[in-house]
């Protein structure tokens, strides 16, 4: 695959152009490019650019949504071929996501889900008004690496602690990292309730999820070394 095709893919993500992204994906497959290579060399760097531009204040939420949509369009073309070849895109991690009990605010949580998906995470979005038990049950079912709990209200923010307690009761806390976010949430609050991390916005949530995955891998490796 020529370099300029990868840069066109990358650009289609930055431009938030789903039609271009899927056309380029089809052309790549027709030219015999391995789907995983197109993903890793073309589209993922595009999402990386988007994250950087957002952090610099050069891109805005609607741009990111469009980029995520372009990523989804490319993946819709590439994933069936990937599966047909007997492979799959390595997941960056499995995340269970939801807005805490008593809270029906969705936008922030959905943004996080969209961006995590675009960055290669497998996301299970439980929606809004989710109890701690539901978080725990889903985390157990999908063997979640991370549980993300959103809250917009100071009153419902307290229920983030309840989710952590539910994970503890279900015996999952050691395997699952918990990240929290939402307008009233702060780093201090995250520490206070024993969460593993706090993200101030959707892009930071992606960075945090990656950090948590690295930490998880490190812990697992250390455990393996110690038991060896």
């Amino acid at each position, binding site marked *: 695959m020529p370099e300029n095709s990868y840069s066109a893919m990358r650009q289609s993500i930055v431009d938030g152009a789903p039609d271009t992204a899927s056309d380029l994906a089809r052309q790549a497959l027709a030219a015999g490019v391995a789907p995983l290579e197109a993903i890793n060399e073309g589209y993922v760097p595009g999402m990386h650019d988007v994250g950087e531009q957002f952090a610099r*204040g050069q891109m*805005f939420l*609607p*741009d990111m*949504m469009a980029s995520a*949509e372009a990523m989804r369009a490319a993946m819709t073309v590439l994933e069936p071929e990937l599966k047909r070849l007997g492979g799959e895109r390595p997941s960056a991690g499995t995340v269970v996501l939801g807005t805490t009990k008593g809270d029906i605010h969705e936008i922030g949580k959905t943004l996080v889900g969209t961006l995590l998906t675009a960055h290669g995470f497998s996301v299970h979005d439980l929606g809004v008004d989710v109890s701690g038990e539901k978080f725990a049950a889903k985390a157990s079912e999908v063997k979640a690496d991370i549980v993300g709990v959103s809250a917009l209200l100071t009153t419902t923010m307290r229920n983030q602690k309840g989710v952590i307690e539910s994970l503890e009761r279900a015996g999952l806390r050691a395997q699952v990292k918990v990240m929290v976010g939402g307008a009233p949430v702060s780093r201090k609050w995250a520490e206070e309730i024993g969460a593993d991390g706090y*993200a*101030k916005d959707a892009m930071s949530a992606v960075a945090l999820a990656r950090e948590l995955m690295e930490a998880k891998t490190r812990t697992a490796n250390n455990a393996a070394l110690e038991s060896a």
Partner: protein
Amino acid sequence: MRPKLQLLDKPLVERILIEAFELIHDPGVRVAPYVVELLRAAGISVQDGVARIPEAVARRALQSVPREFYLYDRNGVAAVRYGRDAVHFDPGSSCLNILDPETQKARPAESGDLVRLVEVAEMLPQYAAQSTAMVCNDVPAEIGDWYRLLLVLWHSKKPVVTGAFSASSLHVLLELLAIESGGGDALRQHPRAIFDVCPSPPLNWSEFASQNLVDLARAGVPAEIVSMPLAGATAPVTLSGSVVQHAAECISGITIHQLAKAGAPIVWGAAPAIFDMRSGKTPMGAIETAMLDVACAEVGKYLGLPTHAYMVAGDGRVIDAQVEMESGMSAVLGALAGINMISGAGMLDFLACHSIEKLVIDAEAIASAQRLIEGIEPRTETLATAMFGQTGLSGEFLKLKETRDLFRKEQHFPSAVVDRGLAGSDGAPDILHRARARVEELLAAYERPALAANREAEIIAFAQREGAKAGLMNLPAISPTESSALAS
């Protein structure tokens, strides 16, 4: 629809003008000997230094004032439109003190402070023009006016709101501007600067002010009358009475100016204030002061003239909630009033002090005011129904193409001076820290827009020659290498 603020109805404006025309005839206007012959030649009686201007003469003068003119940037691009409802902002001018960036305490301003302010204002699109913002205490007082203009011209391409400190020094400033513009004709054709000229309240055109009016008119360089009634002290206590006095001072000044050269550009400008009856201060942040500014401009607009006012200044001594509340409110009011040039940003402490940090905060208030007067536009064929046609009740407007296409037009994005939550709930640093960071960011990105080398050499030679007359041995805030290399 462009939103507008109006404080006076038509009958009140007409009453104001009727009384203003009465005042310039009786008791009349104090004028300087420099203009007596000029006025007498037009049939105006002048006795004991008081001119009694007939309404008909004044009305003829008002008729000959250009309804619209431009100030140009260094490249000859029209950058400021005086006339109709165009709105521009520039930093406040002629301040003695600066709020020290480190200590945040007022101290006498120096040339380096002025240069920093000019560099920051150059980088902020909210400021259409520069001003000769400070009096530099490291420069001999007798050359303070042209030296600060030199520093602004040296470090900026934008138009400049300036002024002379005396009758004689005006010619030095005009010579400097002519050199920078490439000659007197070039300066007249594309004026880069406008000169504030201030009557002394009530109704007194001093020797200095009278002479400036006449000489500017003859030089073809725009003048801006800055009439300053102090309601309750040097003007009637009522706001409407002070507006009458303001109108009388402007009309009499315009008469002198237009008699010197009919058709020369001049602006109906104002820096009124109420007189605080407890402290004896002149609060620039008082709502009544802003009301005076707006009302004075309304009278000028009624006459079809270009307008100016002094707003966006606060009265506290440090950057605090009071100062920014006052500055933000008057920025909005001035913009809604459609005032062509609104001077005053960056200033606090009753105009005694400038702050570069405040200048960047004020720029955010100004940007909001500018957004406000853009108004609310119907940007799509149906206002909402077609978008609902796509989303149904899902609420997913963030994903719509219309959202992405239009949000930049609908929303103004402030700099990090304004905390919009980007720092998260752990909080951004306080406003002063954010403003300081913004100042540093702008200064780091600034590059001096150099003139052609021969023009710069001429300017330096001029500055060294004029500076030597006041014993100035070097040129503060112009680096020694620049000045010696260019002058040699």
